[in-house]
Protein backbone atom coordinates (compact mmCIF):
# COMPACT_ATOMS: atom_id res chain seq x y z
CA UNK A 1 0.00 0.00 0.00
CA UNK A 2 2.19 2.87 -1.26
CA UNK A 3 -0.34 5.51 -0.19
CA UNK A 4 -0.19 4.26 3.39
CA UNK A 5 3.58 4.66 3.37
CA UNK A 6 3.14 8.21 2.07
CA UNK A 7 0.66 8.92 4.86
CA UNK A 8 3.15 7.64 7.44
CA UNK A 9 5.93 9.75 5.96
CA UNK A 10 3.70 12.85 5.99
CA UNK A 11 2.69 12.33 9.63
CA UNK A 12 6.26 11.78 10.72
CA UNK A 13 7.49 14.91 8.96
CA UNK A 14 4.56 17.16 9.87
CA UNK A 15 3.71 16.04 13.42
CA UNK A 16 6.87 14.17 14.42
CA UNK A 17 4.66 11.08 14.74
CA UNK A 18 6.23 7.89 16.12
CA UNK A 19 5.61 4.61 14.32
CA UNK A 20 4.25 1.63 16.29
CA UNK A 21 5.40 -1.89 15.49
CA UNK A 22 2.41 -3.39 13.59
CA UNK A 23 1.94 -6.34 15.94
CA UNK A 24 -1.05 -6.92 18.24
CA UNK A 25 0.95 -6.72 21.46
CA UNK A 26 2.67 -3.46 20.56
CA UNK A 27 -0.52 -1.77 19.40
CA UNK A 28 -2.49 -3.03 22.41
CA UNK A 29 0.15 -1.73 24.82
CA UNK A 30 0.17 1.66 23.10
CA UNK A 31 -3.62 1.85 23.27
CA UNK A 32 -3.61 0.74 26.91
CA UNK A 33 -1.14 3.46 27.86
CA UNK A 34 -3.24 6.15 26.22
CA UNK A 35 -0.09 8.28 25.91
CA UNK A 36 -0.83 9.89 22.55
CA UNK A 37 -2.98 12.61 21.07
CA UNK A 38 -3.51 11.17 17.60
CA UNK A 39 -3.47 7.59 16.35
CA UNK A 40 -3.52 7.08 12.59
CA UNK A 41 -4.05 3.62 11.13
CA UNK A 42 -3.81 2.91 7.42
CA UNK A 43 -4.22 -0.68 6.34
CA UNK A 44 -6.79 -3.44 6.08
CA UNK A 45 -9.63 -4.58 8.26
CA UNK A 46 -12.11 -7.43 8.29
CA UNK A 47 -15.57 -7.98 9.71
CA UNK A 48 -18.31 -10.55 9.43
CA UNK A 49 -21.65 -9.57 8.05
CA UNK A 50 -24.14 -9.53 10.89
CA UNK A 51 -21.45 -9.38 13.57
CA UNK A 52 -19.77 -6.07 13.03
CA UNK A 53 -18.71 -5.86 16.68
CA UNK A 54 -16.29 -8.73 16.04
CA UNK A 55 -14.28 -6.71 13.53
CA UNK A 56 -10.48 -6.86 13.33
CA UNK A 57 -7.64 -4.74 12.07
CA UNK A 58 -5.06 -6.72 10.10
CA UNK A 59 -1.55 -6.09 11.34
CA UNK A 60 1.71 -7.64 10.20
CA UNK A 61 1.16 -11.37 9.81
CA UNK A 62 3.68 -14.05 8.93
CA UNK A 63 4.14 -17.02 6.63
CA UNK A 64 4.56 -20.48 8.12
CA UNK A 65 4.84 -23.56 5.91
CA UNK A 66 3.64 -21.58 2.89
CA UNK A 67 0.55 -20.47 4.81
CA UNK A 68 -0.12 -16.84 5.67
CA UNK A 69 -1.12 -16.44 9.32
CA UNK A 70 -2.77 -13.08 9.93
CA UNK A 71 -2.08 -10.98 12.99
CA UNK A 72 -5.35 -9.48 14.17
CA UNK A 73 -6.21 -6.70 16.55
CA UNK A 74 -9.80 -7.35 17.53
CA UNK A 75 -12.39 -4.76 18.49
CA UNK A 76 -12.95 -6.64 21.73
CA UNK A 77 -9.27 -6.48 22.68
CA UNK A 78 -9.39 -2.73 22.17
CA UNK A 79 -12.59 -2.32 24.19
CA UNK A 80 -11.34 -4.55 27.03
CA UNK A 81 -7.93 -2.90 27.40
CA UNK A 82 -8.17 0.70 26.31
CA UNK A 83 -8.88 3.52 28.68
CA UNK A 84 -8.79 6.32 26.18
CA UNK A 85 -11.95 8.08 27.28
CA UNK A 86 -10.64 9.74 30.41
CA UNK A 87 -11.10 13.26 31.69
CA UNK A 88 -7.49 14.14 30.93
CA UNK A 89 -7.04 12.60 27.53
CA UNK A 90 -9.38 12.01 24.63
CA UNK A 91 -7.15 11.34 21.65
CA UNK A 92 -8.25 11.39 18.04
CA UNK A 93 -8.19 7.95 16.41
CA UNK A 94 -8.33 7.69 12.64
CA UNK A 95 -8.97 4.25 11.16
CA UNK A 96 -8.38 4.03 7.44
CA UNK A 97 -9.03 0.33 6.88
CA UNK A 98 -10.49 -1.19 3.76
Amino acid sequence: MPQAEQEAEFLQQTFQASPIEPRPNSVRQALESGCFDLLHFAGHGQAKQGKIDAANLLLEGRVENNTYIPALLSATTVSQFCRLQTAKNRPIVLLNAC
Partner: protein
Amino acid sequence: MRQSQLPLLTLALKPQIVASKAESQRLSTNGSIQNIPQSSKPLHQLRIIERLNGSQITYDYALESSALNILERYESKPITSERQQYVESLYREIESRWGSTQSDVQAFAAELRAFGGQLLDELFPEALQRQLWEDRHQMQNILVISTEPFIPWELVHLKPAGQAYLPDEVCFLGQLGLVRWLYDVGFSPESITLQSAVATSFLTI
Protein backbone atom coordinates in the same frame (compact mmCIF):
# COMPACT_ATOMS: atom_id res chain seq x y z
CA MET B 1 -34.33 -32.67 43.90
CA ARG B 2 -31.90 -31.19 46.33
CA GLN B 3 -31.24 -31.41 50.03
CA SER B 4 -29.49 -28.26 51.12
CA GLN B 5 -26.78 -27.80 48.48
CA LEU B 6 -26.61 -31.45 47.50
CA PRO B 7 -28.28 -32.52 44.26
CA LEU B 8 -29.72 -35.91 45.10
CA LEU B 9 -32.05 -36.98 42.33
CA THR B 10 -33.30 -35.91 38.91
CA LEU B 11 -36.84 -36.83 37.97
CA ALA B 12 -37.58 -36.74 34.24
CA LEU B 13 -41.15 -35.57 33.60
CA LYS B 14 -42.66 -36.70 30.29
CA PRO B 15 -45.95 -34.86 29.65
CA GLN B 16 -48.41 -36.23 27.12
CA ILE B 17 -50.61 -33.99 24.99
CA VAL B 18 -54.23 -35.13 24.80
CA ALA B 19 -57.16 -33.89 22.75
CA SER B 20 -59.47 -32.95 25.60
CA LYS B 21 -59.47 -32.46 29.32
CA ALA B 22 -61.57 -35.57 29.79
CA GLU B 23 -58.77 -37.73 28.39
CA SER B 24 -56.17 -36.38 30.78
CA GLN B 25 -54.68 -38.71 33.30
CA ARG B 26 -52.20 -38.45 36.10
CA LEU B 27 -48.68 -39.64 35.23
CA SER B 28 -46.03 -40.63 37.67
CA THR B 29 -42.30 -41.08 37.66
CA ASN B 30 -39.92 -42.29 40.28
CA GLY B 31 -36.28 -42.53 41.18
CA SER B 32 -34.17 -43.61 44.08
CA ILE B 33 -31.51 -42.00 46.18
CA GLN B 34 -28.51 -43.97 47.27
CA ASN B 35 -25.63 -43.09 49.52
CA ILE B 36 -26.58 -39.57 50.52
CA PRO B 37 -23.25 -37.79 50.88
CA GLN B 38 -22.37 -35.59 53.81
CA SER B 39 -21.13 -32.08 53.16
CA SER B 40 -18.66 -31.03 55.80
CA LYS B 41 -18.36 -27.37 54.90
CA PRO B 42 -20.36 -24.69 53.08
CA LEU B 43 -19.83 -24.61 49.35
CA HIS B 44 -20.06 -21.77 46.87
CA GLN B 45 -22.16 -23.01 43.99
CA LEU B 46 -23.00 -21.50 40.63
CA ARG B 47 -25.65 -23.46 38.76
CA ILE B 48 -26.05 -22.70 35.07
CA ILE B 49 -29.17 -23.81 33.26
CA GLU B 50 -29.40 -23.46 29.49
CA ARG B 51 -32.85 -22.47 28.22
CA LEU B 52 -33.87 -22.69 24.59
CA ASN B 53 -36.80 -20.51 23.55
CA GLY B 54 -37.38 -20.80 19.82
CA SER B 55 -34.06 -19.88 18.25
CA GLN B 56 -32.89 -17.93 21.30
CA ILE B 57 -30.69 -19.28 24.06
CA THR B 58 -30.53 -17.79 27.52
CA TYR B 59 -28.67 -18.93 30.60
CA ASP B 60 -30.24 -18.97 34.04
CA TYR B 61 -27.77 -18.63 36.88
CA ALA B 62 -28.26 -19.48 40.54
CA LEU B 63 -25.52 -18.37 42.87
CA GLU B 64 -25.66 -19.93 46.30
CA SER B 65 -23.31 -19.49 49.24
CA SER B 66 -24.50 -19.98 52.79
CA ALA B 67 -21.12 -18.73 54.06
CA LEU B 68 -21.59 -15.39 52.26
CA ASN B 69 -25.38 -15.30 52.72
CA ILE B 70 -26.01 -15.33 48.97
CA LEU B 71 -28.99 -17.00 47.34
CA GLU B 72 -29.69 -15.24 44.07
CA ARG B 73 -30.94 -15.97 40.55
CA TYR B 74 -29.94 -14.19 37.36
CA GLU B 75 -30.65 -14.45 33.64
CA SER B 76 -28.35 -13.73 30.70
CA LYS B 77 -29.21 -11.66 27.68
CA PRO B 78 -30.44 -13.85 24.81
CA ILE B 79 -27.95 -15.29 22.36
CA THR B 80 -29.55 -15.23 18.96
CA SER B 81 -27.14 -17.47 17.03
CA GLU B 82 -27.44 -21.24 17.02
CA ARG B 83 -25.72 -22.84 20.05
CA GLN B 84 -23.21 -25.01 18.17
CA GLN B 85 -22.33 -22.11 15.91
CA TYR B 86 -21.84 -19.84 18.92
CA VAL B 87 -19.61 -22.33 20.75
CA GLU B 88 -17.54 -23.03 17.62
CA SER B 89 -17.01 -19.31 17.13
CA LEU B 90 -15.65 -19.04 20.67
CA TYR B 91 -13.00 -21.71 20.12
CA ARG B 92 -12.14 -20.38 16.65
CA GLU B 93 -11.56 -17.01 18.25
CA ILE B 94 -9.19 -18.48 20.84
CA GLU B 95 -7.22 -20.19 18.04
CA SER B 96 -7.15 -16.98 16.04
CA ARG B 97 -5.84 -15.05 19.02
CA TRP B 98 -3.10 -17.65 19.55
CA GLY B 99 -2.11 -17.39 15.88
CA SER B 100 -2.07 -13.60 16.00
CA THR B 101 0.26 -13.49 19.00
CA GLN B 102 2.89 -15.56 17.18
CA SER B 103 3.48 -17.92 20.12
CA ASP B 104 4.23 -15.02 22.48
CA VAL B 105 2.84 -16.41 25.73
CA GLN B 106 2.49 -13.05 27.47
CA ALA B 107 0.69 -11.54 24.50
CA PHE B 108 -1.61 -14.56 24.34
CA ALA B 109 -2.37 -14.23 28.07
CA ALA B 110 -3.47 -10.64 27.40
CA GLU B 111 -5.62 -11.81 24.49
CA LEU B 112 -7.23 -14.44 26.73
CA ARG B 113 -8.04 -11.73 29.26
CA ALA B 114 -9.76 -9.72 26.52
CA PHE B 115 -11.64 -12.83 25.44
CA GLY B 116 -12.70 -13.47 29.04
CA GLY B 117 -13.90 -9.91 29.50
CA GLN B 118 -15.92 -10.25 26.32
CA LEU B 119 -17.49 -13.50 27.60
CA LEU B 120 -18.41 -11.76 30.84
CA ASP B 121 -20.09 -8.92 28.94
CA GLU B 122 -21.97 -11.33 26.67
CA LEU B 123 -23.07 -14.00 29.13
CA PHE B 124 -23.25 -12.59 32.66
CA PRO B 125 -25.89 -10.04 33.69
CA GLU B 126 -24.62 -6.98 35.50
CA ALA B 127 -25.96 -8.05 38.92
CA LEU B 128 -24.05 -11.34 38.73
CA GLN B 129 -20.94 -9.54 37.52
CA ARG B 130 -21.18 -7.26 40.56
CA GLN B 131 -21.73 -10.12 43.03
CA LEU B 132 -18.80 -12.18 41.75
CA TRP B 133 -16.46 -9.20 41.62
CA GLU B 134 -17.29 -7.96 45.11
CA ASP B 135 -16.94 -11.41 46.69
CA ARG B 136 -14.03 -12.66 44.58
CA HIS B 137 -11.60 -12.80 47.51
CA GLN B 138 -14.02 -14.67 49.78
CA MET B 139 -15.33 -17.02 47.14
CA GLN B 140 -12.82 -19.83 46.82
CA ASN B 141 -13.50 -23.30 45.46
CA ILE B 142 -16.61 -22.41 43.53
CA LEU B 143 -18.50 -25.41 42.18
CA VAL B 144 -20.19 -24.94 38.82
CA ILE B 145 -22.99 -27.32 37.96
CA SER B 146 -24.06 -26.69 34.41
CA THR B 147 -26.37 -28.19 31.84
CA GLU B 148 -24.16 -26.49 29.26
CA PRO B 149 -20.79 -28.27 29.05
CA PHE B 150 -19.12 -26.51 26.11
CA ILE B 151 -18.69 -22.84 26.96
CA PRO B 152 -15.25 -22.22 28.56
CA TRP B 153 -16.65 -20.75 31.78
CA GLU B 154 -13.16 -20.91 33.33
CA LEU B 155 -12.03 -18.15 30.95
CA VAL B 156 -14.72 -15.67 31.98
CA HIS B 157 -12.74 -12.71 33.34
CA LEU B 158 -14.28 -10.79 36.22
CA LYS B 159 -14.30 -7.00 36.36
CA PRO B 160 -16.28 -4.32 38.16
CA ALA B 161 -19.89 -4.32 36.95
CA GLY B 162 -20.59 -1.80 34.23
CA GLN B 163 -16.92 -1.11 33.56
CA ALA B 164 -16.01 -1.50 29.91
CA TYR B 165 -12.33 -2.20 30.38
CA LEU B 166 -10.51 -4.85 32.37
CA PRO B 167 -9.04 -4.11 35.80
CA ASP B 168 -5.31 -4.41 36.44
CA GLU B 169 -6.01 -7.47 38.56
CA VAL B 170 -6.01 -10.73 36.63
CA CYS B 171 -9.15 -12.57 37.74
CA PHE B 172 -10.37 -15.43 35.59
CA LEU B 173 -13.35 -17.34 36.97
CA GLY B 174 -11.11 -20.42 36.86
CA GLN B 175 -8.84 -18.78 39.44
CA LEU B 176 -11.62 -18.97 42.01
CA GLY B 177 -10.95 -22.69 42.25
CA LEU B 178 -13.73 -23.39 39.78
CA VAL B 179 -14.63 -27.05 39.50
CA ARG B 180 -17.25 -28.28 37.06
CA TRP B 181 -19.71 -30.94 38.03
CA LEU B 182 -22.63 -32.52 36.27
CA TYR B 183 -26.12 -33.54 37.22
CA ASP B 184 -26.97 -37.24 37.48
CA VAL B 185 -23.54 -38.41 38.57
CA GLY B 186 -23.98 -37.95 42.30
CA PHE B 187 -22.25 -35.31 44.33
CA SER B 188 -18.55 -34.52 43.99
CA PRO B 189 -16.45 -36.48 46.51
CA GLU B 190 -14.65 -34.49 49.16
CA SER B 191 -11.66 -36.83 49.17
CA ILE B 192 -10.08 -39.40 46.91
CA THR B 193 -8.15 -42.52 47.83
CA LEU B 194 -4.80 -43.06 46.17
CA GLN B 195 -3.06 -46.33 45.60
CA SER B 196 0.23 -47.09 47.31
CA ALA B 197 3.04 -44.62 46.69
CA VAL B 198 4.85 -47.02 44.36
CA ALA B 199 1.85 -47.56 42.09
CA THR B 200 0.61 -43.97 42.15
CA SER B 201 1.11 -41.71 39.17
CA PHE B 202 -0.21 -38.21 38.71
CA LEU B 203 -1.38 -36.82 35.44
CA THR B 204 -2.43 -33.25 34.66
CA ILE B 205 -4.21 -32.04 31.60
